[in-house]
């Protein structure tokens, strides 16, 4: 019971798959070139990767960069919208909690 990528073999758009590996909180996760960080995380079975101020889990909500629910840290850069950032081989993705960021 989870989100997933449409299987390559049966996808009517007839696409290529170039494997990409990133780490998520240190753990290697495989995806494909062209995916967003959010797409990769969802396709790997994750639905949440951020904790709010109260500690509640969040993942994707709007999917188009407007809700800021999907924030992650990528290669040390904080507050990256996972739904807007494409993955690159070797990216180090880490999940984040709101309180680490301090007051805006």
């Amino acid at each position, binding site marked *: 019971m989870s*989100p997933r*990528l449409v299987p390559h073999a049966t996808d009517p*758009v007839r696409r290529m798959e170039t494997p990409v590996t990133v780490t998520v909180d240190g753990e290697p996760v495989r995806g494909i070139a062209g995916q967003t960080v959010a797409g990769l995380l969802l396709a790997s079975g994750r639905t949440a990767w951020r904790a709010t101020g109260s500690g509640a889990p969040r993942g994707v*909500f709007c*999917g188009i960069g407007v809700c800021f629910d999907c924030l992650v840290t990528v290669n040390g850069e904080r507050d990256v919208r996972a739904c807007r950032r494409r993955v690159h081989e070797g990216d180090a993705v880490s999940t984040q909690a709101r309180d680490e960021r301090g007051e805006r």
Partner: protein
Amino acid sequence: MSAGTGGTGRHVVGRHVVVVGAGPAGLAAADAALAAGARVTLVDSAEQPGGQYHRMLPDAYEAANPDVLQHGYNAFEQRSMRVIGHRRSTWLADTSVWAIERDDPSRAPLVHVLTGGLPRERRTLRPDALVLAPGAHDRVLPFPGWELPGVFTAGAAQALAKGERVAVGDRVVVAGTGPFLLPVAVSLLEAGSRVVEVLEAARAASATRGWLRKPWELAAQAGKTGELASYTAALARERVPYLPGRAVIEARGDGRVEEVVSARVRGDWSVVPGTERVTAADAVCVGHGFTPRLELAVASGCELRGSAPAEVFVEVDGEQRTSAPGVYAAGEVTGIAGAPAARAEGAVAGWFAAGGDPSARTLAPLRRARDQGRAFAERLAHAHPVGREWPGWLRGDTIVCRCEETDYAAVCAAAGDPVSSEARVARLGTRAGLGPCQGRMCGVTVAELRARLGAPDPDPAAPHRRPVAEPIRLAELAAPPAEREG
């Protein structure tokens, strides 16, 4: 470089038209402005043109059949190649407008943009005319549990399926209101999800009255109705129940959605007691219409029309001109009417922004299409109004502002308190709207709730005021800008 001269200074070319947004509206605007002789800079924060309607797969997917996911793909592809390949056009992909600066009240404002990945390059565009076509995002009314992972906007499900071939769940409930729920359900089916049911809050009678009131207007939007018919057929083929007069009123689960509670609602969306039903689901995709992205128009000084918070749009005249000098608007920011209307508005806007001949013969059919699109929008609003009584499904602890986790009880308390009955004070007190999304998700809802509670905000632009439209990092501000364009 002075306005109206080209980069080389050798030929005097037309006006410099900057178009923000490369969706159906912006792309049509760029095309028409080029046809009228202008120099065009087309800006979009996405990597590819197309906007929400013509969302493209990433280049890296090297899809052989990208057209299977889209209506009208060929016409779109031709237009986008014509615009991007044009010698008088500059396509700024992966470029976000982060601020608008009115340096001279008599002319179009400066447009500050950021391009690319880290560090992004900062640049300032100086247009003779500016066309704003930034589109809209889904509107989702809060309900208990809507903050759980696995609750998505309808648009998110669509964007993930069409844009990168991810299905958001195995057992999915699609809910909310409006014809957009249909393509979303079909995309999910096509991506291999099981769509358990589609719940349309509008009752059949209301939808039918709205759609069938003046059938000739519908015929004029034949492209759109044909498209809708194809979605209905696909849902029928897969035996997906489509239930009018029913709404999702709660999502439940431990750390993520496991089930949703739906109930029958009356015409005003008050819940009919005793009709609640629980459905197991691992994803819920919800949309209650769209919220126009008005921050750039507000920053440009454009007058808005409409008073109810969810019915505020940019005011334009017959030439798509806003009240701000040199600023035009097109597409969903002027009213929610779908892609064909956005395209027609864009073409009219681009033509006039470029200083095109107002008596040009090509304008008549475009204006007609634009007017038909507006009539269609009217009907859409009539067929799928958001019922007044929706707050009936809220509880005191229901989150209203997702970023700051402000709940309904706090919003009510602030509206009833004489000190924070002023909207700005309430915002500081409850923090609703002060999180990273800058009130994009909750602004209109909070304004609506406060108006119901007797503390309306007299300024309809308030939920849309975001002087910094895109987060910018200090390092990016500190770096010297790339050369200002003329």
